[in-house]
């Protein structure tokens, strides 16, 4: 059975992106009430990591970065 590499890559990106988004959201939730400057920065970084994972999953799903082929 032949699988198109692009389809495989997109599938991995979608599944991986969703997993990383869930994990980072859980980490953010667990750390939400932790005090200290370093933990505030970690929370900001985890939030941005969550957004990045969602963006990567959407790009894998062809929702973002879906451009028509050049003529």
């Amino acid at each position, binding site marked *: 059975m032949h699988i198109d590499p692009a389809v495989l890559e997109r599938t991995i990106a979608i599944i991986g*992106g969703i997993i*990383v988004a869930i994990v980072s959201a859980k980490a953010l939730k667990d750390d939400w009430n932790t005090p200290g400057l370093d933990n505030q920065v970690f929370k900001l970084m985890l939030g941005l*990591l969550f957004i990045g*994972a969602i*963006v990567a*999953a959407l*790009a894998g799903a062809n929702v973002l*970065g879906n451009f028509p082929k*050049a003529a």
Partner: protein
Amino acid sequence: MAVASLPHGSSAGHDGVDQLYADTRALRLQGMLLFLVSDCILFSSFIFAYLYMRNSGQGWPPAGISRLDVAFASVNSVVLFGSGATMHYALENWKHNNFGRYALFMLATIVLGIGFLSGQAYEYTNLIFKEHVTWAGSGIFGASFFTLTGMHGFHVSVGVLYLIILFLQSVHGVYTKDKYFGLTAGTLYWHFVDVIWVVLFSIFYLI
């Protein structure tokens, strides 16, 4: 999985070294954050230069250059973002005195970091030898792409070396349950390179 406990140094007492650590931790954290802010300014300068040049040209990408491979870059991005999550849990397990899981997550972070660099090397190889896009010979596109992603790749390479050194230090008992600022700094740095990639991935592949 066997769970070992962390090495414990002289953290229980209030000797001179511990007091020094407590007194200087906030300063070290501020120093690390200032370093990251300065790095952020460095990347911002290049990103704004790229966006300015991109918007002052006629169409993007320039004629003769095809769009970058979004599917492969998405996978590579997920690998890097995944390493951010594993790094976070490495530090959390260190804080909770769980050396076995710390080591597992730390090694996973290093492997994923190397995986990202390998993916970037593969992408560079494809661009240079198949698409004939080079740093000097493809105008603004090649120059800005290779400069920004190369600078980021350099940061990831330094980060991987940094994490390897941190891991070896933690194995040799340099850090304890109470004194682990090096690991905190390493986690901050690794999250930083993740977050920079969110921006680079968006501006080079998605817009």
